[in-house]
């Protein structure tokens, strides 16, 4: 059955810490019509039940409530040039993230210039990673198309590494004759105290080394053409290099190991009345160098790709629905479907009912084939995974402005 007591204690602790922060935020925030300080908070509680394979936690086939998020967000405009912003977040995500509060982002934003038609600035600190249509707002439940983003593109198992970067972000906006262009470039590192990256890359074999840091840089271009105001285009490039600290036990055999992945992604979105069509295509290139002590080094290059098509329909003012198909293939040369972690095909149906402006309920059903990019939780066992499986999830989200 559900570990209710344990869950309550864990949930209670993080909720208590964040509640204190929310009280502080509401005290700091002025009236609702103040432009200087804006505070927002959200809380969500979800339920997952998987069929034929566990998902996020080994208990998911019996049903699990280990899915909640609590966030507190502050924006402080110091003057027309300086702005400060941060978000405290607690996430319980199956057995992957256990609800410990963490600084999701914390940044200082300096506006270099703004002449109306062109604007540029720099953000420094822990900055969100602009990548595709959804990455930089993926922590806020109501911003996601359903409960879970398509893992084929957004690597759910590497959320902490994907979502932000400790470094700098140069940004600019340009109003051109052809449309509006937004440019972002970033560079930095991201570390995490959890083992998600190690589990993801080394499949839980913990005697090879530690991987708790990732170096990242990238570029994001977002364009809205004037001739087609209902269309949006986005191009993202991300280069990520996990920094591998080899275990002393194997450094006698392997002297160095390096891994890098380059992601190119094209996104398009088109809105026609109450219908929004979105698609993102990603090209994945990996490079691995392993230098052995007593034999020639290995250099392995792979290429893969992923995409999804999504139809969002709002049949009623308070109801959103999504239908999505996503596909991922890690290595274009290995199209066999025996390696379940090498590919995935996911059909998704989701709906969100806005009960009140601040309260909504989301339900999602995924029919899945393959297990690529599925987060690896402790006690994950390849032998328990079926090729065809499914996940039903529900989530109640509440949002409050102070």
């Amino acid at each position, binding site marked *: 059955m559900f570990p209710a007591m344990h869950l309550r204690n864990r949930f209670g602790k993080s909720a208590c810490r964040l509640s204190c922060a929310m009280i502080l935020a509401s005290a700091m925030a002025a009236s609702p*019509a103040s432009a200087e300080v804006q505070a927002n908070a959200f809380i969500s509680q979800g339920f997952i039940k998987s069929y034929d394979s566990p998902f996020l936690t080994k208990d998911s086939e019996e049903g699990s409530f280990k899915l909640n998020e609590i966030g507190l*967000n502050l924006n402080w405009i110091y003057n027309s040039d300086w702005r400060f912003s941060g*978000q405290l977040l607690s996430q319980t995500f199956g057995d992957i993230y256990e609800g410990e509060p963490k600084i999701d982002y914390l940044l200082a934003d300096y506006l270099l210039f*703004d002449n109306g038609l062109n604007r540029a600035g720099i953000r420094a600190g822990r900055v969100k990673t602009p990548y595709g249509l959804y990455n930089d707002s993926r922590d*806020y439940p109501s911003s996601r198309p359903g409960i879970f983003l398509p893992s084929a593109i957004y690597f759910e198992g590497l959320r902490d590494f994907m979502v932000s970067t400790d470094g700098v972000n140069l940004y600019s906006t340009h109003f051109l004759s052809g449309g509006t262009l937004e440019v972002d470039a970033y560079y930095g590192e991201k570390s995490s105290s959890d083992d998600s990256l190690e589990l993801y890359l080394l499949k839980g074999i913990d005697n090879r080394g530690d991987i708790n840091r990732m170096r990242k840089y990238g570029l994001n271009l977002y364009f809205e053409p004037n001739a087609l105001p209902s269309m949006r285009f986005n191009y993202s490039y991300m280069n990520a290099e996990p920094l591998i600290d080899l275990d002393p036990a194997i450094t006698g055999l392997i002297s160095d190991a390096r891994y890098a992945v380059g992601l190119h992604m094209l996104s398009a979105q088109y809105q026609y009345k109450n219908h929004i069509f979105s698609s993102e295509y990603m090209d994945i290139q990996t490079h691995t160098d392993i230098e052995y002590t007593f034999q020639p080094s290995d250099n392995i290059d792979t290429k893969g790709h992923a995409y999804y098509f999504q139809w969002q329909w709002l049949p009623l*003012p308070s109801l959103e629905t999504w239908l999505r198909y996503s596909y991922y293939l890690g290595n274009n040369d290995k199209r066999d479907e025996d390696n379940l972690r090498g590919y995935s095909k996911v059909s998704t*149906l989701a709906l969100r*009912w806005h009960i009140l402006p601040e309260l909504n309920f989301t339900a999602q059903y995924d029919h899945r084939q393959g297990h690529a990019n599925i987060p690896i939780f402790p006690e994950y066992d390849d032998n328990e995974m079926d090729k065809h499986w499914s996940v039903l999830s529900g989530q109640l989200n509440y949002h409050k402005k102070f």
Partner: protein
Amino acid sequence: MAIFSSYHLKTDLNRRKLFSTFVGILSLSLLLNVQILAAADATVSVIVHYPNGHVVEYQKQNAYSPEMIDKIFTSKLRSWPNGLPIQAFILPVNNPVHREFVHKYLNTNVYQIQRIWNRLIFSGRGIAPIELLNEEEMIQNVYKTPGAVGYISTRNLYRLSQTSILKESK
């Protein structure tokens, strides 16, 4: 073989249950949302704090182009051509005037525009327009904030001249 068939039968039953659950949730949502549909009927006008200090209907001024409205309310355009910072005000999501404004001027729906604002708020990229309680607050805030822009129902436009007279008499 028998075990295999029984497994498939079980899986099939599970999926049928899931489908029924989804249909149930959808039907409930449809039922509860019928009333909301009836409420969304209002004609809306954009108002702006003009450089001369008056608040005017956006369509009846010449300083700013109509294409700017969409850029302003999606927080892309943040200063007027004269360098003055833009301050956009909005009404609550369930206000019919807000729904009409989003539909008519931003060519989208309230949840899509909310997603754009949430992206700004929760990614640390910026701030969303400031939400006010009602049209009364909207008129007052646009009057007292240079560079402000907002919207009210068209039938309330007459109040702009009244508020202007009150302000000048003080």
